[in-house]
């Protein structure tokens, strides 16, 4: 009996391992979040009714990170809500040159509109010009082209505004707690990106106006492990922290892990971007994370909707103008425990 | 023998007086005197470690002497570096020819001093001048645009000499130029050297081979332990005297007497072994305690044969059996486990970990056997290595020294010693005495004989026919990938073997 049992145990162990390896391939398929798209309400106006067919080309950098992944997922899902939209997405590699090559192929297929999140706005500006000249409308997403002729419409997040919103929340909380000279830490994202610099500037400008300063700032790389590592070092540098702003909720998982590992719960923490994970944590209110300032990938869904309207020559229903505006800058909103429930559906 | 040049220019172009050069731990040169005249071939003799290499490097501007004077064309000089020496007209051709394989002949000849105009290399001029120089060396058949790696060793050597001439060299230093050449190519080398000396260029010629010195040399200087022991001897000085100046001993080849009685059953049986383009249908056998020598030219397939028997190359056909058990083709591991060992041709690149200590090199094939449960035993390894070092009279005896610091002969002892550790029953030796000085040679011969006396079978390959005849019990002659003759060493003489070895190059297409 004993030997049979042992054999069974061994077999079981092997099966567990094999199962784990096999199933790994099929698990965790990123399910498009229905909540981040918005089927146009038929009652709201004429825009809901299927119009002429629009071919929308889409390109975003290969996602190595949750926010970018959500951009692509949202765009695809939003396009699927329209019966009159044909959606063509191209894989666009890991750098600006690769994306350019992919875009040229896309342009050759003559779509009506191209929605594009460029690797770098400056580097791909010339493509915008080329496409516009060829009569293809370009909707730039998130990373602005310097040349206004290079796009029909830009949908941008507000990086500076994120910093401002985060700082305002910190100031408000500190004043409420009566901390006169708070120790404020900052975990930034990839430091070589302009958007990181802009976010940090918004943060420090606003703090300075209130008479506060950033005591220490470490730049992570938008990844969980770099978030953990940089946070662990920031905690060493600042034995007591009153407030901490982390630019990105994805790396924030690592930042929170570092706080937990060091057993440091004395500060309030503000996140950035607005991931589902973060919003849930804010709602649960069981960690230092008390707020996050949005930079939502839902902008991809909006960009697709705008692209469809541009393709059909229609304007936005609630606006007086007959055409879609040239630029839309989304405001960075502050999610706290009070309004978390409203934003949960936008979390990625 | 060679008569003195017609109008001897008695004024030396180069004179070294009391040159001393010390390195950490070694006095490499300890009072060297040397005098070289224009247009002569001055031979430099000495055992490994006598200071020849250091002397060359001093002349080439690589090292600066600590004391003593170097006079070049009557003026005392101190070269700041190799470029300065080259510029002054001293060119050195090292044993490992320092050519760039992926550049053309002309580019190599003018490497570093290409003819230029407005910063652009004048290829046409470069090729034309290379052609001229090659012609002056009697080798206009070498195409200046050919890539150097496509040339045979002899061709590369000619290119090295052409490079020296492109610098208008007045003194050419050649370090064992014949070592990389086949027998018939050496004659051609001498031809070129005579052309150079006729133009008044002086040559310092370094070689271990007495017959070459007698043929090409004018005068001989002998070094021992960094000191000049005899200067300006005539080249026809009897060999015994030269050898005694080098070593204190008086014979060139010292073979211990044959005592071993070979067993009767074959230890190694090779049957119809073939490898395309290298050798065909080779069958041979070695008995325990027997030394079998293979004579043949470079390119006769002898080294390839040895490596194939050892499993380092995979045969196309045929079998190798040790004690009647067939070895897995192309698997060194199975050959070693069966009791085979090999000392390959290129010691440094094929056999040694130069930076590792002696004992780790000695146990390279046996450390697994000395280990327990995968854990090595440094103590046992050292003890075993010390025992072998003792029996081989290894110098230095300290087995923790890196192998790099040993002379060629002692490095070879380490390689042979490696196989004495593991109960090897068949030892394959490929050119065991190449680059080994006379004294160490005799010791190696003794070691090989002792091994045979203990019942180890030895299969030996050598370019030097006297070595094969003196050491082996039985001789096999290889030519163009085939065995052409097998005989007892006592039944066959040097001339016969040489005839057989060279037959192919003398009589085109002669049947074996």
């Amino acid at each position, binding site marked *: 009996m004993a030997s049979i049992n042992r054999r069974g145990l061994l077999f079981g162990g092997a099966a567990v391992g094999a199962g784990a390896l096999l199933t790994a391939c099929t698990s*965790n398929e990123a399910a498009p979040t229905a909540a981040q798209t918005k089927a146009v309400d038929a009652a709201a106006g004429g825009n809901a009714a299927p119009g002429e067919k629009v071919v929308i080309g889409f390109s975003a950098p290969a996602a190595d990170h949750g926010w970018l992944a959500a951009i692509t997922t949202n765009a695809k899902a939003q396009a699927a809500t329209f019966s009159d939209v044909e959606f063509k997405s191209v894989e666009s590699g890991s750098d600006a040159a690769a994306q350019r090559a992919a875009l040229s192929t896309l342009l050759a297929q003559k779509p009506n509109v191209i929605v594009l999140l460029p690797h770098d706005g400056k580097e791909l500006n010339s493509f915008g010009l080329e496409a516009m000249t060829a009569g293809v409308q370009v909707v730039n997403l998130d990373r602005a082209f310097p040349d206004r002729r290079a796009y029909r419409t830009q949908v941008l997040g507000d990086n500076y505004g994120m910093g401002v919103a985060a700082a305002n929340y910190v100031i408000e909380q500190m004043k409420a707690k009566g901390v006169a000279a708070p120790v404020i830490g900052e975990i930034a994202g990839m430091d070589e990106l302009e958007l990181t610099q802009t976010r940090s500037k918004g943060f420090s400008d606003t703090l300075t106006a209130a008479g506060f300063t950033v005591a220490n700032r470490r730049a992570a790389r938008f990844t969980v492990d770099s978030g953990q590592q940089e946070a662990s*070092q920031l905690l060493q540098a600042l*034995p007591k922290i009153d407030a901490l702003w982390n630019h990105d909720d994805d790396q924030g998982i690592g930042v929170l892990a570092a706080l937990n590992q060091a057993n440091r719960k004395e500060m309030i923490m503000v996140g950035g971007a607005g991931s589902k994970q973060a919003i849930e944590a804010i709602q649960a209110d069981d960690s230092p994370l008390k707020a996050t300032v949005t930079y939502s990938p839902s902008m991809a869904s909006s960009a697709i909707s705008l692209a469809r309207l541009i393709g059909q020559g229609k304007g936005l229903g609630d606006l007086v103008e007959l055409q879609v505006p040239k630029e839309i800058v989304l405001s960075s909103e502050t999610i706290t425990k009070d309004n978390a429930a409203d934003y949960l559906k936008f979390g990625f | 023998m060679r008569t003195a040049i017609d109008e001897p220019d008695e004024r030396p172009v180069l004179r070294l007086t009391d040159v001393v050069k010390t390195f950490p731990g070694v006095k490499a040169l300890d009072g060297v005197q040397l005098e070289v005249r224009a247009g002569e071939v001055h031979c430099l003799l000495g055992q490994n470690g006598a200071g020849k290499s250091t002397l060359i490097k001093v002349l080439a501007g690589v090292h600066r002497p600590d004391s003593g004077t170097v006079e070049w064309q009557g003026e005392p000089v101190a070269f700041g570096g190799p470029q300065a020496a080259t510029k002054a007209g001293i060119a050195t051709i090292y044993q490992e020819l320092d050519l760039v394989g992926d550049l053309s002949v002309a580019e190599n000849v003018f490497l570093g001093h290409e003819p230029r105009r407005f910063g652009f290399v004048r290829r046409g001029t470069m090729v034309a001048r290379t052609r001229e120089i090659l012609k002056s060396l009697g080798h206009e058949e070498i195409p200046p645009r050919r890539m150097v790696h496509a040339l045979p060793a002899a061709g590369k050597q000619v290119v090295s000499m052409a490079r020296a001439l492109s610098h208008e060299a007045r003194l050419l230093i050649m370090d064992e130029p014949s070592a990389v050449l086949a027998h018939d190519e050496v004659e051609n080398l001498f031809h070129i050297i005579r052309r150079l000396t006729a133009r008044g260029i002086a040559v310092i010629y370094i070689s271990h081979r007495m017959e070459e010195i007698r043929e090409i040399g004018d005068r001989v200087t002998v070094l021992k332990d960094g000191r000049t022991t005899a200067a300006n001897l005539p080249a026809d000085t009897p060999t015994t005297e030269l050898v005694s100046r080098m070593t204190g001993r008086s014979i060139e080849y010292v073979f211990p007497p044959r005592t071993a009685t070979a067993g009767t059953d074959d230890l190694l049986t090779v049957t119809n072994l073939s490898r395309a383009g290298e050798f065909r249908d080779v069958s041979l056998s070695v008995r325990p305690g027997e030394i079998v020598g293979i004579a043949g030219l470079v390119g006769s397939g002898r080294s390839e044969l040895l490596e194939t028997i050892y499993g380092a190359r995979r045969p196309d056909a045929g079998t190798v059996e040790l004690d009647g058990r067939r070895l897995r083709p192309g698997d060194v591991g199975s050959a070693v486990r069966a009791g085979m060992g090999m000392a390959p041709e290129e010691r440094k690149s094929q056999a040694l970990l130069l930076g590792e200590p002696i004992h780790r090199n000695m146990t390279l094939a046996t450390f697994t056997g000395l280990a327990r449960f995968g854990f090595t035993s440094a103590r046992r390894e050292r003890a075993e290595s010390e025992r072998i070092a003792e029996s081989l009279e290894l110098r230095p005896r300290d087995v923790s020294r890196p192998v790099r610091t040993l002379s060629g002969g002692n490095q070879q002892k380490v390689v042979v010693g490696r196989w004495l550790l593991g109960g090897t029953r068949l030892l394959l030796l490929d050119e065991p005495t190449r680059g080994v000085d006379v004294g160490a040679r005799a010791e190696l011969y003794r070691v090989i004989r002792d091994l045979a006396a203990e019942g180890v079978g030895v299969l030996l390959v050598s370019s030097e026919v006297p070595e094969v005849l003196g050491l082996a019990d039985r001789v096999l002659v290889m030519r163009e990938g085939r065995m052409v003759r097998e005989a007892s060493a006592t039944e066959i003489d040097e001339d016969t073997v040489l005839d057989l070895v060279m037959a192919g190059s003398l009589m085109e297409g002669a049947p074996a």
Partner: protein
Amino acid sequence: MTATALETGRKRLWAGESGESVSRNLILAGVLVALLVIGAITQPQLYGDSAWVWSNVLSILQLASVVGVVTVGMTFVIIGGGIDLSVGAIVALAGVWSTTLATQSFGAGGMIFTAIVVGIAVGLVNGFLISYGKLVPFIATLAMLVAARGLAASISGKQTQISSSDLINGIASTKLLGIPILVYILAAVAVAGWVLLNRTTFGRRTVAVGGNPEAARLAGINVKRHTMLLYALSGLCCGIAAIMLTAQATSAQAAMANLYELDAIAAAIIGGTLLSGGRGTIVGSVLGVLIFATITNLFAINGLSTEAQNMVKGGIIVAAVLVQQFRFQSVTRLFNRKP
């Protein structure tokens, strides 16, 4: 007395490896202490608190732990004459694979098993391509770098996968006798690596294969099989590191362990591992990792920017190599001076 001391010194030097690397490692340890002293001088207030100093030392050790484990494997590969550019990607792949919902359903044991099996398997593929496919290690592992990150991204669906195993996450947050478990793991891997390199036939083969592959082959060592095992060993270390990193970040994603290959190679080189193979020490490599971690820490506690930190790290790599060259020559001279 002096004569004997000199003689011992000289013997050590002739012993080559041991003597040379001992003094090299002493210098590295000196650099490490110097960095800590700089920290104490620049931040006297923090260093005034002994509890903080202890916690800071632990934080440096934790920071070094994951890269340290990867570097031990890398050191073997480099001593063996190869290079493994795919270590960061293997860590990411093993981390992602072990945190899929399916794997997590088997619990912490299943996750550890998966990470290690994935690490070894990818290492074996590297080794196979290099040994039997005759690909240059640089190319083979570069291709694996790209491919493994790609596979990691497709398995994770480009999402961050949260580890919900308290046992795994506890590896990074639990202390034993006041020392984090991660530090014990680094110590265990380093000691095991040291024993493997210096006391076993595997280590001897590694040095032989890296120092002169032809000589090793002709001495009867199965060079191909050993080369393959070296990459598998590196993969194993990556698997262990993946668990450690997942525990630290309480999650895994395809982009994690970014540029670990460069950190590990740089640490090995600073530690005196010869890039051409045949020489190197585990102690040196671990010291190299600790120096890097201490620099990161030093810059963090002084609130200096990451750019400056990276420039200093680059400078340290060059300086370490230059100093070692210079130092070895001068020490050789010293030992050979006549008493």
